[in-house]
């Protein structure tokens, strides 16, 4: 366990709010741009939500409380037996909480991490299959911490009957996991559901689940509740079908679609893991996200966190807030709420300032796409860059300390340069057990494999050995832009490589771009 703690990048909560740079993006990529086109009342709801707004995730933290153990369906990617503290993926928790414990923990975390804006209940089972526990937690929190947003994530089976109560407790964000709208495909994902006091297998069960999900989605949208749809991309099962899912949920009013990769390893003990079902490659995932995008915002910064995660996205400080540690904390709730308000004001002021200074620099990719016939010859090749950052939108992490990289894509057309956020890639793919888990591949080799498809790597510093190994692997390391805003730095490195002729350019583009 000690390994895990040492391995993590050191969180610097005190330094984060506005102390430096910050993400100066008009939007970190296409989904932020698309969020900007949403009606004002929706934008206001997602502005500070790290899971719904790509830009907000650089600044704000979230937490999940594991109060909901029971589930009413079985998914082939889930195994309820698993609980390893080295694991970071949905459905996994270390400690089940009662609603009272969850409230105490939330207030403790909110006092220690003032950037925390969102409390979610996501499991480890299905929150709405445990309505008493889930709703009791929300009830107490809306009373004791009115400045914290509440959200819930569900498979949707019990959603229609609970929409009324959800709205009563003023939960304005709901995530529904919808992997299909076709029962035949559903039968390959959900072996059974528990419905009206019976276990219902196969296609019949999948049909009921799909109907309930769609009904719940419609009811929430009709009431003005924000709905995000999560889909797990399972190659060979629902990959092509997800385009249809995206179309259907968008028509019903979902505001964000989050296509996530299947996580399946034999050691997880899930059906897919044991049976050898593969997950998608980064390329496959990105291609599908692009195809689903259309006019709806796609979410690309999801970290598929645990049902008891605490902290900024991509980070988990859960170990600092175990039940006994929380019990020993002495917290002044009033003072904590005041401090949160101050910290948020500082973050907002810095976000606003950055946004203003930025707007001329980059043309959002969405507007480029709409302008269509672009003079093709002037376009330069797209290049991807991996960035080491701890948050705040700046390059501030040592290469060797990065547990994940944010991948950005730069493209140029004529004089316009566009930098967009593509994905977050984890180095240790959901397991931070390190050498103790018997994985022979060394950490650096693993990191380099994570960076596949990238042209360069931007970090605050990098050691000599990793520098050489990156170069040997055909990557361009760069440590010259420490503490600079990510997109400015990516743009600068892209320009530099382009000028030096080091980007793989199609012959046509090279001939005409000089």
């Amino acid at each position, binding site marked *: 366990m000690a390994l895990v703690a040492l391995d993590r990048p050191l969180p610097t909560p005190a330094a984060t709010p506005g102390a430096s740079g910050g993400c100066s993006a008009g939007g970190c990529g296409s989904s932020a741009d698309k969020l900007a086109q949403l009606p004002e009342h929706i934008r206001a709801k997602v502005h500070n939500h790290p899971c719904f707004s790509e830009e907000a995730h650089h600044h704000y933290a979230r937490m999940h409380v594991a109060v909901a153990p*029971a589930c009413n369906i079985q998914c082939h990617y889930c195994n309820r*037996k698993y609980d390893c503290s080295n694991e970071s993926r949905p459905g996994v928790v270390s400690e089940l909480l009662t609603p009272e414990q969850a409230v105490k923990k939330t207030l403790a975390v909110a006092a220690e991490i003032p950037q925390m804006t969102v409390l979610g209940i996501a499991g480890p089972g299905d929150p709405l299959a445990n309505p008493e526990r889930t709703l009791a937690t929300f009830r107490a929190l809306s009373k004791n911490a009115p400045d914290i947003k509440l959200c819930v994530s569900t498979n949707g089976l019990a959603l229609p009957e609970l929409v009324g109560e959800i709205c009563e407790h003023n939960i304005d964000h709901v995530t529904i996991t919808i992997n299909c709208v076709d029962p035949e495909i559903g039968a390959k994902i959900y072996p059974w559901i528990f419905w009206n*006091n*019976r*276990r219902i297998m196969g296609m019949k069960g999948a049909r009921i689940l799909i109907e309930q999900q769609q009904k719940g989605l419609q009811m929430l949208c009709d009431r003005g509740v924000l709905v995000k749809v999560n889909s797990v991309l399972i190659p*060979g099962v629902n990959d092509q079908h997800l385009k249809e899912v995206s179309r259907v949920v968008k028509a019903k009013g979902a505001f964000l679609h989050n296509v996530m990769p299947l996580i399946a390893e034999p050691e997880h003990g899930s059906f897919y893991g044991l*049976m050898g079902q593969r997950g998608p490659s980064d390329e496959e995932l990105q291609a599908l996200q692009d195809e689903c995008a259309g006019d709806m915002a796609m979410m690309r910064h999801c970290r598929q966190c645990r049902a008891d995660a605490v902290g900024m996205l991509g980070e988990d400080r859960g170990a600092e807030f175990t039940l006994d540690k929380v019990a020993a904390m002495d917290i002044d709730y009033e003072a904590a709420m005041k401090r949160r308000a101050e910290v948020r004001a500082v973050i907002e002021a810095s976000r606003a300032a950055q946004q203003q200074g930025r707007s001329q620099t980059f043309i959002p990719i969405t507007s480029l796409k709409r302008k269509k016939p672009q003079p093709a010859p002037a376009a330069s090749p797209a290049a991807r860059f991996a960035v080491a950052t701890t948050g705040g939108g700046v390059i501030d992490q040592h290469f060797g300390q990065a547990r994940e990289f944010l991948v950005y894509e730069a493209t140029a057309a004529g004089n316009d340069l566009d930098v967009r956020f593509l994905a977050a890639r984890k180095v240790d793919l959901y397991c931070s057990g390190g050498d103790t888990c018997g994985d022979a591949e060394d950490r650096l080799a693993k990191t380099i494999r994570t960076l596949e498809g990238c042209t360069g790597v931007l970090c605050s510093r990098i050691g000599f050995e990793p520098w050489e190994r990156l170069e040997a692997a055909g990557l361009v390391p760069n440590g010259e832009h420490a503490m600079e805003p990510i997109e400015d730095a990516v743009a600068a490195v892209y320009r530099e490589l382009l000028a030096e002729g080091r980007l793989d350019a199609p012959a046509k583009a090279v001939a005409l771009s000089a």
Partner: protein
Amino acid sequence: MAYRIIESCVNCWGCEPLCPSNAIQAARPHFVIDGGACTECDGDYADPQCASICPVEGAILDGLGVPVNPPGSLTGIPPEHLVQTMAEIRAR
């Protein structure tokens, strides 16, 4: 006759609120069924409730000690087809 929960139980709380006889208690290392109170849901439901929501094959035994959800029954793969199914899935 009464049902019994054995050690493969993962303490997920799925069964506890469903029992019409309040025969299930949370306990360590795993949940237990009060054999005196369990009616196997006779007269209340067509299917025994605990065994109908339990996600773990083999975790609940019937009065004869036989798993209510035998291997393969919840994943939907007949054990005799396991090898063939695995080959099909790996080819995706």
